[in-house]
């Protein structure tokens, strides 16, 4: 069986650093470069922060993380059961943010896209959002 890990935390901003550190630590088993691991950390931080800030709008909720090692790649799935995204392709545009008043720059998805080898966003208004991303050795 392939290796995996599952993690669940309440949507509290203090957990952002915890989750990215845990995912990076799990990813170490793959022979990734130091830069790759730093990329993973940043991308995970983006997804978890989005769940807390947008998904749950700083209210109570749960953020779930599943990591799998598949064929020399690390697959990371981050989900929330928050408000969801109405128009995913608009949300993914660089500089698009629904919270400019909170000093958000609208660069989170762009960071995930550039730092990872693959990014899939699935979301349903009222149900939540699932982010799946992948980083591969030599990707």
């Amino acid at each position, binding site marked *: 069986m392939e290796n995996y890990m599952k993690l669940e935390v309440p949507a509290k901003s203090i957990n952002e650093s915890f989750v990215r550190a845990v995912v990076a630590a799990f990813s170490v088993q793959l022979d990734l470069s130091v830069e790759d691991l730093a990329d993973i950390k940043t991308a995970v931080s983006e997804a978890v*922060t989005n769940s807390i800030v947008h998904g749950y709008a700083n209210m109570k909720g749960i953020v779930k993380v599943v990591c799998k090692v598949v064929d020399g790649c690390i697959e990371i799935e981050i989900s929330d059961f928050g408000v969801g995204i109405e128009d995913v392709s608009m949300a993914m545009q660089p500089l698009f943010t629904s919270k400019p008043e909170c000093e958000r720059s609208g*660069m989170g998805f762009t960071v995930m896209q550039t730092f990872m080898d693959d990014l899939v966003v699935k979301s349903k208004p009222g149900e939540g959002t699932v982010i799946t991303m992948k980083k591969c050795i030599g990707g």
Partner: protein
Amino acid sequence: MDIKLETIGTTLVVKINGEIDHHTAQVFKSEVDREINLRNIVNLVLDFDGVTFMDSSGIGVVVGRYKEITARGGKVMIIRVKPQVDKILEISGLKTILECSH
């Protein structure tokens, strides 16, 4: 994250140590803004030598200070940037509006 503030005339030097994310950005923002208003700061130097991590929440907070300082007719400078942080400054386009050095 912890930050150290030093004022030289109307220039504020902010030394940041640790990780800048959504959680820590709030502290950064309130401490820097308080000093800017208290000491009538015009120019801002951000010393990133101790910054080990930054995500897009950091971009937001730097852009916010940039707007404030520009409105005061001043300049923002980021110095001693580490490679991973440099990468995020690069894709955010911040490097083209700020003065950055390694």
